[in-house]
């Protein structure tokens, strides 16, 4: 059988007589196999791109820093847990694009499902704690504190809730992406 490398489906290259005698299902199966073969040729399991490697090593840190910034900036400036989580996820996606998944898992040895679950748990607990104290569910408090190194800081339990959102979004997005990318 000829190796199909162009966009044309097998049923056309195979000739008219082939179409006559083969059932539709077997043609489909053959096509899938051909697609598998062609993919292996196009994308090797491990590929090296020096530019991407070098650039992503720097960029990932910038992205992460920015993500953390917008997570905490969200209280008073544009940003918040949801965006922060997604930006972090883009940073990880960049890693996945630049390196293979095994390397990425060595770099980030965390289970993303746990991260998502912890995030949901934090969000629920920030709601439940005031409820246990007799206040309405999800009552937020704010306070000002003087911390060394940071100076006068405005603290809010709403930020804690946002951290939960951050982790939940990050964990869910990465669970989906890493699973699809590692799928055989």
């Amino acid at each position, binding site marked *: 059988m000829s190796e199909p490398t162009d966009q044309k489906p097998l049923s056309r290259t195979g000739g008219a007589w082939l179409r006559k005698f083969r059932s539709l299902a077997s043609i489909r199966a053959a096509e899938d196999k051909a*697609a598998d073969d062609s993919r292996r040729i196009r994308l090797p399991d491990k590929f090296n791109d020096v530019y991407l490697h070098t650039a992503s090593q720097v960029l990932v840190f910038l992205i992460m820093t920015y993500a953390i910034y917008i997570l905490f900036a969200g209280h008073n400036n544009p940003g*918040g847990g949801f965006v922060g989580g997604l930006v972090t996820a883009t940073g990880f*996606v960049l890693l996945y694009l630049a390196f293979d998944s095994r390397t990425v898992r060595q770099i980030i040895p965390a289970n993303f499902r746990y991260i998502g679950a912890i995030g949901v748990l934090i969000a629920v607990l920030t709601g439940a704690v005031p409820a246990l104290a007799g206040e309405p569910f*999800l009552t937020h408090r704010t306070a000002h504190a003087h911390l060394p190194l940071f100076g006068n800081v405005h603290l809010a339990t709403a930020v804690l809730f946002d951290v939960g959102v951050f982790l*939940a979004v990050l964990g869910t997005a990465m669970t989906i992406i890493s699973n699809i990318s590692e799928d055989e």
Partner: protein
Amino acid sequence: MTPLHLAILTPFLAMPVVPFLYKRLRRFHTGWFVLPVPLVLFLYFLRYFPLASEEPAVFTVPWIPRLGIDFAVCADALSLLFALIITGMGTLVVFYSIFYMSKEREALHNFYVYLLAFLGAMLGVVLSDNLMVLYLFWELTSFSSFLLIAFWFQRAKSRQGAVKALIITLFGGFSMFLGFLMVAEAAGSFSIRHIIANAGALKAHGLFLPAMLLMLLGAFTKSAQFPFYIWLPDAMEAPTPISAYLHSATMVKAGLYLVARLTPAFGGGDAWFWIITAVGIVTLFWGSFLAVRQIDLKAMLAFSTVSQLGLIMSLLGIASLALAPGLSETRAEWFAAAAFAAVFHLINHSVFKGSLFMVVGILDHELGTRDIRKLGGLMGVMPVSFTLTVIGAFSMAGLPPFGGFLSKEMFFTGTLAAFGERSWPAVWIPALAWLASLFTFVYCMILVFKTFAGQKRPGLLDKPPREAPVGMLVPPAILSVLVILFFFMPNALSRHLLDPAAKNILPGLAAPGEPLFGHVSHWHGLSPELAMTAGIVVFGILMYRHLPGWSAVYDHLPRKWTLNAAFEKSLLGLEWLSRRLTAGYMTGYLRHYMSYILVFMILVVGGSLVALDAFRPDLSGGAAVEAYELAVALCIVASTLFLAISKSRLTSIIALSAVGLLVSLYYVFFRAPDLALTQLVVETISTALFLLCFYFLPKLRQVEVPRSFRLTNLAVSVGVGLVFTLVGLSVTGHRLFEPISRYYENARELAGANNIVNAILVDFRGFDTMLEIVVLFTAGIGVFTLIRFRNRRRHEP
């Protein structure tokens, strides 16, 4: 929270402890740790005795006050009678199960957890004053019954029996729920006491009849009345202690409790009397008729339970006549006697049937079979079991000197009274009742003599016959003693428990402090009731003697047109229908589902736009369109068009993300930095996801698609575009309410945040966000499992 609430909740509180005790202390039978729960509750309810004859104690804990749902409990004599049966039988059954259930082989932690759940739920049913709370506990009893029937879930028959019981009782329970809602609508409250006080308003309301029918459906399914009884014989797959407890002494009486409890609210009318009496009498006859032909002792007891439940049900129906308007005083007294008889027979049945089930459990346990054809001549080997069976069975047959004799006589009085009141249209009531009692007598004789008398057949038994251990004999012995005590001292029982309970069924008939029903006497002179009993004994013995001669009757019963077959057929039909329905639209193609969603959206949104005449474009307040905004719009249109005609997936994805990124530019123009930021990141992530999935998809092929398919797609896409354009244009033309954004502008003071968007997300609408991330996370786990599961399937063929 009062002691009475705590009493209901105690079994639930004990539930989580049981598995730990089972795991840690394997040397002891877990039943010993569970035993104190029903025992303490029994003693606690005994303490309420003096209260029973006085004003009932009501305690309320608010639960959902806005809907009128309170956890209100009320301990009057009727509730107390049931609570005593539940906890008393519970104690004996747990004690019995310690010897019946092997601690080595059985999953005792599950068994006792389910049993405790049932105990608490059943107490909740009989003590709740609020219909909604009652319903909650009612369904909980169904579920615990389901779990207990399927306790030996390795057996297919157990699972089938459990599912059947669950389907039928839940069907009834749900009807009952609807009935309750109607009752609350008509009487203005969920509180049973309130409803009874407002009975006049309820009876005058248009929803009275449907509410009554739906409510009775719940009671009939739960109490295994004709034609819903079919689940009870199959429920006998449960371990015998469970059959003795749930399926004869307590749970199946919940329907009777409900009917008795609501008689003051519903009773007095013709419909209530005829429906309940007819269903009860038919169930009584049919159950006893079918019980005679059973060869499995437990199945025989199951049908006998069905039959006896019908007896009590019909008594409750007859008793309701006492509330009919314009009744002479002597007649009212007769029907009051029927209410008394119902309560009396209820407790009698719990006692003798519980005992009989336990004895059959002993036979099963010691001999390995319950098949009558294999049993016989056990009188000498198992003398105690034999004595216990005689006491239980003769009480059930209505013979002196056992408690059943008294209540059976009173039952005949009741049926004759109904005949006297309604004359010839009701003549079948005493007739069928007598016939049914005849069959009852026959199967009681079968139960005693086929098992214990006659020839020994040791060859047919799995184990050599021997008497059971003392522990298993104690609970049925206690019950048998009660059977005899009830005969000799009925008035002590009547004064303290039965008469006050009957008064709760027919309130207002007797003055406070005066008994409803005078004196229970053993000898009434040569009354018609005595003649009926004598007739039963004479004909019963004849029929038992000539059993092979007439049992050919059963061969003429239709085999194909049974209720069980109808049940199976209707289930299969439902399955077939739903499969056909689903197969009709679930094609497996995402593009079909997309078009369903979009067409639905066009119809609803576009339809309401037309129907409400809502299209009123008002562009007067708009700002001038800048040239760069126009340019971005053109770019969006261009990339969308490119998306439609592109031939490769990669270019499609790029065009799609171009659309998304260009839209985020608008957010920048209109000063919504949060939205712009989110849109940008979402676009980035989804493009990455697309590329990942793209890697797995087969190549885009040039396939000839039918013109009709293309036209449908075109119509759908044009429709969506049109509808949204129109909606967008008309949004500014309407202002139905004050804008709520004013409120959020105070985010600084209210939430301590300068970013309004973020304050809305985490504070003002924080609950939404919390549930959203829960949904998001659940979806993520869903994707994870789908991918993992598929892989495992592929690797492990």
